[in-house]
């Protein structure tokens, strides 16, 4: 029968022990954006777990249905946060997609997209120079204040406009980025820690200003900040798409790059990267050479908001009289259990009025490449999110992940809103800078 393949193969499969944790109580259903939107059981966490379990038990085969519903999942892991049994959905999903990927004919997307994806994941993402070269036009547009706005004359549905809408917009007061990140930035004042910074791929190409803000804030808080060479993309996009082999190569390269430096922590300012890097141990568990180093590496990974909240911030903020709301990045709140830290940091800034966002921990629909693979669903999820964001009438919506920033940026641009999207550390940086200015 075409489109039908047998069960799971190889050791990298959804583990029955994980699947067995699910008692089908259904308490996760309303936490799931796709279930809320579609009201369709196969698009619920419980439904997806059930489908994976049926394959594990030999009651069903890997087929188109499984592929469609595993790929319609955002991977936001909101279901994990509410699940009373601790079902590790993120892990199940990664392995489930990996198994589906073993059957190319089941790819739930168009041929064109699959070719694009192959190129992106296998050719471009692993190569830093190529990735950066291809991102050059985006960087150029983003680096000139006001340039992106020129595209606003294009009609709403225009694809080019949508892409440009996603680009980060730079504050006028922030200097344009230098060409390379300094390999070492010394701590200001007493040294409290030596940390490494992950640059990543998208962050490195489009969010250099966030990296620079991160380095400044860390240095001001007594950190020697190192940016080891040889590091590159964390592999998150690949892992989430079931492309594990390349993800492992990327992980090994990063472990080598950071492994040599004696670091107290490896700082990440992209939630999606941090979540995957904290799971390098799982990714490389069958690699005899790297299994141990991967665990040691993972144990040192800290999201920048997590790290700063633990360190107790040095004072020196100026008053920052702006209203700020905060959108939880899924891979921070659901993936790493980090939610009060970024809020606490923002609330530590004098003069800043913090406004809690309604349903802040609901996904914004960015979800890696989701807005490319499922544009209609992603848009519906985004619309709901922007509705809530606009309700706050904040000046700035803070977040901690590049995907979320770009998605929110696009959503706000679509509505013609002037609300700014900033990383939490950029706001901290602005408060410190305002003092010295």
């Amino acid at each position, binding site marked *: 029968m075409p489109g039908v393949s047998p069960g799971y193969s190889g050791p990298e499969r959804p583990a029955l022990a994980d699947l067995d944790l699910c008692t089908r109580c*259904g*308490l996760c259903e309303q936490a799931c954006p796709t279930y809320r939107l579609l009201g369709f059981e196969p698009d619920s966490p419980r*439904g997806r777990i059930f489908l994976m379990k049926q394959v594990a038990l030999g009651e069903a085969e890997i087929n188109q249905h499984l592929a469609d519903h595993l790929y319609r999942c955002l991977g936001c892991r909101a279901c994990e946060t509410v699940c*009373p*049994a601790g079902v590790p959905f993120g892990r199940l999903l990664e392995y489930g997609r990996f198994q589906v990927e073993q059957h190319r004919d089941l790819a739930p997307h168009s041929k064109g997209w699959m070719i694009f994806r192959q190129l992106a994941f296998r050719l471009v993402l692993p190569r830093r120079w190529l990735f950066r070269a291809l991102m050059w036009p985006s960087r150029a547009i983003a680096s000139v204040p006001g340039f992106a706005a020129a595209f606003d004359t294009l009609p709403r549905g225009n694809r080019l406009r949508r892409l440009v809408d996603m680009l980060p917009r730079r504050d006028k007061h922030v200097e344009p980025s230098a060409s390379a990140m300094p390999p070492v930035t010394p701590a200001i004042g007493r040294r409290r820690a030596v940390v490494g910074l992950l640059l990543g791929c998208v962050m490195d190409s489009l969010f250099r200003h966030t990296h620079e803000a991160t380095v400044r804030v860390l240095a001001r808080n007594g950190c020697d900040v190192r940016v080891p060479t040889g590091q590159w993309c964390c592999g998150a996009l690949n892992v989430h798409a079931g492309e594990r082999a390349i993800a492992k190569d990327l992980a090994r390269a990063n472990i080598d790059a950071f492994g040599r430096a004696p670091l107290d922590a490896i700082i990440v300012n992209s939630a999606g990267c941090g979540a995957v890097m904290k799971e390098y141990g799982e990714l490389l568990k069958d690699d005899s050479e790297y299994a141990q180093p991967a665990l040691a590496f993972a144990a040192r990974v800290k999201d920048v908001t997590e790290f700063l909240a633990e360190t107790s911030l040095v004072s020196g903020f100026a008053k920052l009289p702006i209203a700020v709301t905060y959108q939880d990045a899924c891979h921070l709140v659901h993936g790493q259990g980090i939610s009060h830290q970024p809020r606490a940091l923002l609330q530590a800034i004098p003069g800043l009025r913090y406004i809690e966002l309604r349903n802040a921990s609901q996904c914004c629909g960015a979800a890696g490449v989701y807005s490319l693979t499922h544009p209609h669903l992603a848009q519906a999820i985004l619309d709901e999110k922007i509705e809530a964001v606009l309700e706050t009438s904040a000046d700035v919506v803070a977040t901690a992940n590049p995907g979320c920033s770009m998605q929110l940026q696009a959503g706000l641009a679509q509505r013609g809103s002037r609300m700014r999207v900033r990383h939490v550390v950029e706001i901290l940086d602005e408060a410190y800078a305002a003092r010295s200015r």
Partner: protein
Amino acid sequence: MQEALIQRLRSAVGHEHVTARPDDLRNYAYDGSIDRAAPEAVVFPADAAQVAAVVRACEELRCPYVARGAGTGLSGGAIAEFGGVLISTARMRRILDIDAANRTALVEPGVVNAHISAAVATLGLRFVPDPSSQSACTIGGNVAENAGGLHCLAYGVTSNHVLGCEIVTPQGEIVWLGGRENETAGYDLLGVFIGSEGTLGIATKIAVKLTPQPETTRTLLAVFDSVDDASKAVSDIIAAGIIPAALEMMDRLSTQAIEAYVHAGFPTDAGAILIADVDGLQESVGETAAAIGDVCRRDGAREVRLAKDEAERERIWRGRKSAFGAMGRFSPSYYVQDGVIPRTKLPEVLAEVEAIGRRYGLLIANVFHAGDGNIHPLIAFDEKVPAQVDAAIAAGADILRACVARGGSISGEHGIGIEKRDCMNVQYAPSDLALMAKLKAVFNPGGLCNPAKMFPTSRRCGESARTLQRADLPEGIAPAAGPAF
């Protein structure tokens, strides 16, 4: 399934809101219980008129049909045992009207229980019935099961908070039962419908009562070395004339399962813990909480803790609400019982539950709505092992017999459905059941609306093969087939 029926369904609700793809149907074969059977089609109507059209099509072509809310039911109510059509309320989820002055709301059946309270919170109101599944289950399912909740001790169950319902009868008519106000004349048909487990028709609109939020609520956690001491404290609290808003008990296995993931702050070495909510006016609440604390200490509580803020309260209640799901820590499935017993019999019934667990070699954790004597023994088993399934079902039946033997009942709030129907004989005389069957036949003469639920089959209570097969469907789904149907 007949092609003609599928066509009728499609024209009733729209092509894209019907599925008969076998792959889709697999995901509709389960609910929160342990039974499984796939329907032959699932339809997603948008309103009462569409539900009526679906029902008429099914009745005319003699096909069984079953309503489904969120599928969190614990007695197999939403399982399409004989195939046929599953009518999902997933698209009927609008809150149609909120009348703050008269403290009522009109909602569609697919609205999630917790969403009602969320929608009226800024008005200082809430919808009281709060089953532990409230973040997922629907108001339609609550009405069908007459669901209870953690705060039913002081405030009553679903039937106390529903003013009226629009239903589609099995004849395909749209009628209103009850009122929008409190009092109505004539037979209490609403009372008959609530708790009828989807066998008398399908609710399409529900008028619910809203209740003002209490000025303050305090939550108290008392830790005991033994279940006996905790049970005694429960009886003593009620005997002292104190009515807490909620009074819940959990034994050691339950707290261990919960703490494994949820981290509610429960001790995992205690014999039992009690959780009490006290609400009302600022001054009185402190006094009542202190009085409960005193009773607990007198009965041997080794620790009495008052939640210091809202966050801690929420953590404690989230822990309690996680109890069933958390059983995944022990086993892939659990079979939850729902017996009711006189409060004073708690220690004795629990001892028997423990003995039953030993007899069948199964782990049984216990959670109770202690204030109402509603016990929820959770029997851990693995559905992949047939012998364990049989043992769990037999153990469950023994527990229910133990409850009835002490003057109790086989179900407090989860309904009878498939799971407990064969135990109805244990509680009711044949003449009682015959009267119920006659009543059912008035509403549902063809017997196609959620067939064979609630009424005993030819099997014995606790016998193993559970879901009936299509061939078992009483011949021609005969009208008023008596107690067997």
